[in-house]
């Protein structure tokens, strides 16, 4: 199995308000098509780790590879382009753009990538929404949807550029148990049927239990399980 994500000796410090060693000597790798929750207590550094892996935070020591490509030290513009093409994001607070319709929200990352025509992108976006049973809402303004619906749209948006990896920060943190179940099933499906790697930070132990593998963190280190 090929490796989707590899982390070598990553260390991170917070300098404000005082010097603090958040992550120490993190090394691990995730294979393609794996569904891996990252769990741990508040403040253990799991979200910090996720933002390092997502390339949004570049202030760290060590090396991060995605698809065998070293991302450490790349310029911000290159990283932006890389994220656009290879990484899908799902956040706790759904973060759809309120001025746009559901369909447009899903289309935006693909429009930014600019590889396909607008029409093709629209077809793909409808397709992704259908996978998540949200196609009926395509032309509604995203701010009119419920939390669970918005999160599903956000997942469709994360999928639009066919990324190799989806990173999620507490994707079910604001959802009830029914919607949590739905999101969980969607993630499992994506990992096992589409071969998309899914790395998600979560508090939800039920969510974590039935995953392929769990990365548990404590005090800035990965716990051996």
């Amino acid at each position: 199995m090929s490796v989707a994500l590899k982390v070598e000796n990553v260390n991170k410090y917070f300098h404000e308000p005082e010097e603090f060693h958040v992550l120490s000597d993190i090394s691990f790798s995730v294979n393609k098509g794996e569904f891996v929750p990252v769990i741990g207590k508040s403040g253990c550094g799991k979200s910090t780790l996720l933002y390092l892996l997502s390339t949004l935070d570049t202030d760290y020591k060590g090396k991060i590879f995605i698809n065998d490509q070293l991302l450490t030290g790349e310029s911000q513009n290159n990283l932006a382009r890389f994220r656009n093409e290879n990484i899908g994001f799902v956040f706790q607070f759904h973060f759809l753009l309120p001025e746009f319709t559901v369909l447009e929200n899903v289309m935006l990352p693909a429009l930014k990538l600019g590889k396909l025509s607008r029409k093709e992108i629209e077809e793909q976006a409808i397709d992704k929404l259908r996978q998540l049973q949200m196609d009926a809402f395509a032309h509604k303004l995203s701010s009119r949807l419920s939390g669970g619906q918005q999160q599903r749209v956000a997942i469709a948006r994360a999928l639009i550029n066919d990324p190799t990896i989806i990173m999620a920060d507490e994707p079910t943190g604001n959802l009830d148990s029914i919607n949590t179940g739905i999101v969980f099933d969607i993630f499992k499906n994506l990992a096992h049927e589409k071969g998309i790697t899914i790395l998600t930070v979560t508090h939800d132990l039920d969510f974590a239990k039935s995953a392929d593998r769990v990365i548990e963190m404590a005090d800035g280190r990965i716990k051996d399980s």
Partner: protein
Amino acid sequence: MVDTLIAKRHLMANKKQTLVAMLGVTFGIAMFILMISFMIGVNQFMENTMLSSTPDIHIYNDIKTDYSVSIAGDYFKDKNLLVSVRHPKPKQVNLNIKNASGILNNLRQDPTITRVSPFLSTQVFYNYGPVQINGYINGVNIIDESKIFDLRSKMTIGQPEDLLNTDKGIIMGRGLANKLNLGIGDMVTLTTPAGTSMSFRVVGIFAIGIGTIDDTRSYINLANVQQLMGKDRSYITDINIKLVDNKLAPSKAGELYKKYNYKSDDWQTANSSVMASNIVRDVLTYVVSITLLTVAGFGIYNIMNMTIKNKMKDIAILKAQGFSGHDIVRIFLSQSLFIGFFGALMGEVLGFLLSYALSRVPFPHNDFISLKYFPVIFNPAHYLFGLVFGVVTPFIAGLMPSIRASRIDPVVILRG
């Protein structure tokens, strides 16, 4: 382009705010257009007015009495004495231009000069019935003089040539004629400072539009004035000159002064106070316009800052999805430019309408200035300048907030 799509949505989502920002630019540009159209209109009116009363170059014999030589020196010259005359009186001088016909011939052959008009000017009293009014007359060759000042268009009654067809005719300024209650065909008696007097028949009335001239000046044939003053046919005091290009007047005047040693005033020097007030108006226009646009710029700056504050989450999510810092700058700067461009466009329309309206407002009636409406000019260059200004200001105002937006750290916002 996806950046412009996002920019458009942001603008449309907040129509009221967008409109308010636009109106700031609109009023700035409209006032700029109105002010510059009016101010330049005034400048041009002033220049036209002074050119209608001032020749390009005016040559005359300035009073300069030489006090250094005294007859006392001649009288005591044999004695070994130092002669000092305290506070001498000026001696009588003739203010005429000597060798006038030679100078005139010379000037008429100069290719840079289109027209030469010699004249004889003197103070007189106008007597009509018991009324006596102080003024002056210009003895002219009316054909030459009317070519220089376009007198034909300024005649309210009669024609300049009527002077030639009448023995002892006079063309009077309108204000003067009104004061004396004189009309065509009436006789008026002129008395010179030397005491000689002669009667003239009114054949025409002119109005240049400058009170000080219309209230005091009249034209008479040169020969009549020479006769009135008891001078010979070559006696003239002044020469008016019209040049091919009046911008060259100052240098030409200097040249003529050197050549003939008579005082030569160009129209710009003669009207230096008017030229100075033109400059003041120009400066004022730009200062006020720039102030207005700066205020509009701050308005845009504020609104862009507010927009960006409201859109922090959106900026973070866009960056997470692969929009670069450049994209973010483009998204917000294009909003600013859109506001500027369309605000300026509306400002140009508003400015034109206001200028047009002003150009139809009757100017308050005034004896000194003949102006029917407020002077306004419509120059496409001003509108182009306004548009450029209206786009540059928002660009500068929007640049800083946009750059700040592009520097937002998405991690801080996404983590909440």
